[in-house]
């Protein structure tokens, strides 16, 4: 179901903001969908459009070549706020497959992996440098190589990054978490049986109590 992530060479958009919250990535009024797709047009809605729905020329994703950006470079605490998976869905639907920032809010970070988006943590100074690279536009593509765990700058310099090995494996293979976990179904059965005796006081939830 999930696309694999191996190597990505693409235009990177600079978003020099800290604390980009999920309300900013996708405002609540667009959460009324029952689908995962179609949210890309509302990505960064308030930053991207004015009150009349017209594009704000100064917003990075409204100009070439950043309309085709597949990488986003930002500052601290990216994705803070609500748990809405609509945030990575909106990024993905727009075409973003990788976000580079000094750090990420926990839930957003884990939501990215579930959707084939690679969040890369790099120190602030490195992000600032990549931000400058990204400002150079279409001729300056970044490469993110997950297998080798490096970001390659336009000048060829390679910057290594750390990533959880389990998450890396799932991304590289495009594996679904649920399928992985269900391989351990016997152990879940065993745990449930043990708990049912040890904590027999825990009531079942029924439609009416």
């Amino acid at each position: 179901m999930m696309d694999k992530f191996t190597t990505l060479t693409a235009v990177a958009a600079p978003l020099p903001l800290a604390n980009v919250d999920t309300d900013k990535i996708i405002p609540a009024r667009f959460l009324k969908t029952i689908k995962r797709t179609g949210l890309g047009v509302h990505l960064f809605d308030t930053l991207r459009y004015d009150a009349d729905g017209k594009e704000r020329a100064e917003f990075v994703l409204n100009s070439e070549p950043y309309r085709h950006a597949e990488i986003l470079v930002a500052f601290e605490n990216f994705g803070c706020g609500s748990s809405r998976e609509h945030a990575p869905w909106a990024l993905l639907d727009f075409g973003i497959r990788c976000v580079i920032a000094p750090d990420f809010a926990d839930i957003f970070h884990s939501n990215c992996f579930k959707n084939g988006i690679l969040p890369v943590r790099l120190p602030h100074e490195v992000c600032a440098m990549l931000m400058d690279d990204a400002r150079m536009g279409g001729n300056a593509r970044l490469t993110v190589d997950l297998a080798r765990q490096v970001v390659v700058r336009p000048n060829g310099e390679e910057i290594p990054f750390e990533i959880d090995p389990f998450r890396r494996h799932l991304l590289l293979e495009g594996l679904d978490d649920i399928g992985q976990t269900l391989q351990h179904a016997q152990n879940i059965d065993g745990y449930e049986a043990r708990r049912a005796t040890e904590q027999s006081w825990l009531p079942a939830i029924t439609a009416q109590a």
Partner: protein
Amino acid sequence: MSESRPRTLFDKVWDSHVVETLPDGTCILYIDRHLVHEVTSPQAFEGLRMAGRKVRRPDATIAVVDHNVPTTDRRLGIAEPESRLQVETLEHNVAEFGVPYVPLLSARQGIVHIIGPELGISLPGGTIVCGDSHTSTHGALGALAFGIGTSEVEHVLATQTLLQKPAKNMLVRVDGTLGAGCTAKDIVLAIIGRIGTAGGTGHVIEYAGAAIRALDMAGRMTVCNMTIEAGARAGMIAPDDTTFAYVRGKPYAPKDAAFAQAVAWWRTLPSDPGAVYDRTVVMDAADIAPQVTWGTSPETVVPITGAVPDPAAEPDAARRAQMQRMLDYMALSPGQRMQDVTIDAVFIGSCTNGRIEDLRAAAAIARGRHVAPGVRAMVVPGSGLVKQQAEAEGLDRILTQAGFEWREAGCSMCLGMNPDKLAPGQRCASTSNRNFEGRQGPGGRTHLLSPAMAAAAAVAGRLSDVREMAWREMA
């Protein structure tokens, strides 16, 4: 894990729910209670359907509608077509997958984080998840409770487990006694102001100290609720007699002998003496005045006696630019006194402050006073049961006589997914938890504060120090 090492509350709850530890340290963590609502679940049920999977433990799952629902007469149905579709989709899904459901017209309907504890579904020592970041609320009972994304909702529905790595332990100890007019909301805002919105990232925060012990369950839930605003996914408070007295007799809680057995286990949960925390923060409640936010991040907090800070005094250029952007959005100027800020709207409710204790605090201020001219003030109980209780105590009459609107239960203006929204440029004193740009409606401006402070702002027409207003406790 060695049994002899002193363990924290978090360690104990975590250890008792690990099904299996995978070679890289990722754990398969068993989930005791899964709460489901209409906004973050449709794609999860759709995923199950496409993979031909079932809900593994419907008897550990409960669904409710809260985010989208109108807070006016619900027998009229939901006018907004997209909101209606989400609600109908959940109703269809719970029927198809056999999940227990609290319908919109039930007296037990309400915000998922209010009804979980209120119905006895959220219990001490358990693991509780929901596709909603404020699931941290339930940690007030001594549970490990955290928000998850929709893919994880699907994972829990299918397997009753999550793949997780253990968090780090952080202790926030609040010593001393709160002053009059100061509340749990002020404690948690002060904590966020101190450690910042990323201060708890990667940690589970345990709250302890005399000021936390002295809080009732409603106050403890307010504190744990806003833990996510400090970047930590979960907040926890060790269960004690206050907790057990609260849980006893709740509809889904264990009864009689089972309750006694449960309490015996719950009493073993508090952190061992000598347990080690990766980080410790100590504060004194006596230093905490009523708090209010000035910017568009919950960490931008000052005492009500304070003033809007000056970006020029901020040495870091990026932070300075961010502060300026916030001031522009909030239409405030450096040095402006918080008490001079006039408001257009007041919102009292949400999973942070929509409990009966919160409504009593608001009514104590509202009694015998009136909402200032030109201010729209709205009170939205957190659940149908809270609403019933408030009406039994006559709080609705006190509030409506004072000019407040009295609504049906739901998330309402906390995030403005239903028709309750701020108009662009409107300024709101709000008891909710997020003051992000546009959170309460596009262009709306939010100041976070306690219910008593919100009621005080409503009657004064500006942000005000509740301590300067006489109030009557509604015991």
